[in-house]
C-alpha cells in the first residue's frame, strides 16, 4: 500500500504541475483584469489543435510547443481588441458573459475545422523510467519540469522586468498607474495575450498525454477553476501550490476510495478552504 501511495503522490505532483501551467493563464488574466475567463478551456483546446496540426505539418514536436503559444497570443489579442477591451469599465459580470460567448464561438469553430473525432499526437518521449510499482512515463516528468520552469520564469518576469513591474502596478491601482505614465491599455492587452498563450502552451503540452478532441476543454476548465479559486484569484504562487495540493489529495484518496469520490473529496477540500478563508489561500482580502 505504501508503494501505491508514493506513486499516487508522485503522479499528483507531476499532473499538479501540468494543471498549474494550464491554470496560470486563468489566474493571470483574473489577477490583472478582474476577468473570470470562462473561455479559458476553449483556448486550451485550440492550443492542442494547433499543436496537432503543427506536429502533423512540421513533424517536430518541439516546434509545436513554440507555435501554439504564439498563435494563441495572437488569438488572445484579437479577442481582447474585439470584445474584452470594451468591457473593462463595466461590472465584472459582463466579462464572464462575454467570455462565455467566446467559448461558444471557439469550440464550434474547432468542431467545424478540426472535426469531432479525437486524434492523438505520438508520445514525443516514448520512454518510461522504472519506478516503484511499475514504470512512469518520462514525457510526463518532462512536462512537470517544463511547467515548473515556465511558472518560475513567469514569476521572475513579474518581479524584475519593466513590463512585469507595470503589470503589478496596474494591478494595485489602476488610476495611479495611469497617472504615472504606464500605458495601461497596452499592459492589459499584453496580459490577456500572455494568459491566452499560457493556455495554448498548456494545451500543446497535455495533447500527447490525453488526445486532441474538441470537447477536451470542458473537464480541464472545471479543474482549473477549482485550483484558481482555492489558491485565491490572482495569486501565481497560490495557483502552483493549490494545484499540487489538490492533485495529490485526489491521487492519494483515489488509492482508498472510488475515483468519483476521490474527485468529490478534492472539490470538498476547496469548499472547506473557501469556507475558512473566503478569499482563498493566498488571496488578499
Amino acid at each position, binding site marked *: 500500500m505504501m508503494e501505491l501511495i508514493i506513486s499516487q503522490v508522485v503522479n499528483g505532483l507531476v499532473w499538479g504541475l501540468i494543471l498549474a501551467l494550464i491554470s496560470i493563464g486563468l489566474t493571470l488574466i*483574473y489577477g490583472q483584469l*478582474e476577468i*473570470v475567463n*470562462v473561455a479559458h478551456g476553449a483556448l486550451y483546446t485550440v492550443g492542442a489543435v494547433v499543436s496537432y496540426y503543427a506536429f502533423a505539418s512540421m513533424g517536430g514536436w518541439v516546434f509545436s510547443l513554440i507555435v501554439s503559444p504564439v498563435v494563441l497570443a495572437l488569438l488572445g489579442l484579437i479577442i481582447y481588441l474585439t*470584445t474584452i477591451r*470594451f*468591457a473593462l469599465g*463595466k*461590472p*465584472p*459580470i*459582463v466579462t*464572464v*458573459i*462575454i467570455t*462565455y*460567448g*467566446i*467559448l*461558444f*464561438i471557439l*469550440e*464550434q*469553430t474547432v*468542431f*467545424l475545422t478540426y472535426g469531432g473525432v479525437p486524434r492523438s499526437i505520438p508520445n514525443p518521449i516514448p520512454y518510461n523510467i522504472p519506478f516503484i510499482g511499475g514504470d512512469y512515463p518520462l514525457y510526463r516528468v518532462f512536462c512537470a519540469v517544463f511547467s515548473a520552469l515556465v511558472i518560475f520564469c513567469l514569476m521572475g518576469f513579474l518581479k524584475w522586468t519593466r513590463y512585469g513591474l507595470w503589470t503589478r502596478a496596474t494591478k494595485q491601482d489602476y488610476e495611479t498607474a495611469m497617472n504615472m505614465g504606464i500605458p495601461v491599455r497596452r499592459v492589459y492587452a499584453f496580459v490577456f495575450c500572455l494568459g491566452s498563450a499560457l493556455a495554448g502552451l498548456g494545451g500543446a503540452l497535455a495533447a500527447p498525454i490525453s488526445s486532441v478532441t474538441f470537447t477536451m476543454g470542458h473537464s480541464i476548465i*472545471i479543474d482549473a*477553476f*477549482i485550483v*484558481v*479559486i482555492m489558491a485565491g*484569484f490572482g495569486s501565481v504562487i497560490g495557483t502552483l501550490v493549490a494545484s499540487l495540493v489538490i492533485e495529490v489529495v485526489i491521487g492519494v484518496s483515489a488509492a482508498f476510495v*472510488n475515483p*468519483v*469520490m476521490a*474527485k*468529490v473529496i478534492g*472539490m*470538498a477540500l*476547496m*469548499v472547506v478552504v*473557501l*469556507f475558512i478563508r*473566503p*478569499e*482563498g489561500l493566498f488571496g488578499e482580502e
Partner: protein
Amino acid sequence: MTTEGQTHSSRIGWLVVIGVAICLLVAPHVLDRYPRYILTEIIIWGLFALGFDIIFGKTGLLNFGMSSFFGLGAYGFVFAVKYVYPSVWLGILSGMAFAMVFSIVVGWIVTRFSSHYFVVFTIVISMILFLLAMNLRSITGADEGINIRLPNLQVIAWEFSLRSPITKYYLILGVAAVAFLVVWLFFDSPMGRAVVAIRENEARAQMIGYNTAHLKLVAYTLSGTVAGLAGAMYPLLNSTTSAELFFWILSGKAVLWTVVGGAGTLWGPFLGAAVLVSAEDALSSWLVDFYPILVGVLLIAIILLAPKGILGTLLEWVADRRASMEPGGKS
C-alpha cells in the same frame, strides 16, 4: 438593469400583460401538437431562467450553477411520485423542497463570497452534484435516469388524466403563473426593493440598515426554489429525468436566455427562452453547424451594446419616449 419604479398604472403595460395572458390561455387549442409541446417546454425553461434572473438580474450575483436546483427539483418530483405517494402536488412540493433545502445550505456559504468567487464556486458545486448523480447509479439511474408513470391530477374534487397534453399544458402554465406572481409581488415588497438595492450599491444598503448577507440568502433561496419548481415540471412533461440535468450546459442556457431576454425584468427570461428555444428548434436543422457561433456573437453583442437585453432595452426606449412626450417633462 432596468430602472425601477416606472409607474405601475401605465395602461400600455397592463394591456400587454392581459394580451399575453389571453394568448397563453387560448394557445393549446390553436396550436398543433408539436408547437404546443414546444410552448410548454418554453414555459418550463422560462420559469427556470426566472429563477436565475432573481439572483442575477435583481440581486446582481451571477450564479453559474443553476442546473443544481433544476436537477434536484426534477429528482425531488420523481422520488416523491415513484417511492412516496403518486400525487402530482406532492411531487411538485417535494421538488421545491429539495431545491429550497439545498439552496439554504449552499446559500449560507456562497453568499459570503465576492462576485468572482461566487461565480466559480457555484459552477463547482453543480459539477459535484453532476458527478454524484452519475455515480449514485442505483438511486438516480445516472445518464439513463428514471422513467415514471404520471398519476392522475387531483384538483379538489375533479380528477384529470395527465395523458392529455392540454391538461399538462394548463397545469404547467398555472404553476408558472403562480410562481411568477409570487416573485413579482416579492420584488414589489419592501424586502424585494432592498434586495435590488444590493445590486445597485451594497455598501450603502448596509449603511442605511439592511442586513445584506441575510437578504442575499433570501434571494438565493427564492432563486433556487423557483428553479427547483421548474425542474419539477420537467418530469411532469417528459415523464423521465436523468443525471444529465445537473450538467453545467443547462446553467449556461439559463444565463443565455435571461441576458438575451432582458435581465432584471422578470418577463425577460420568458421572452429569451421563447426566442432562443424556438430558434434553436427551427433553425438548427439547416444551420446546425453555425448556430452555436451565432449564439456566441449574439450574447457578446447584447451584453456590450444592449446590456438590458431585448425587453430591458424596449422598456427603456418606451420610458424615454414617454418621458420626452410628457408636457414640459424634464427628460
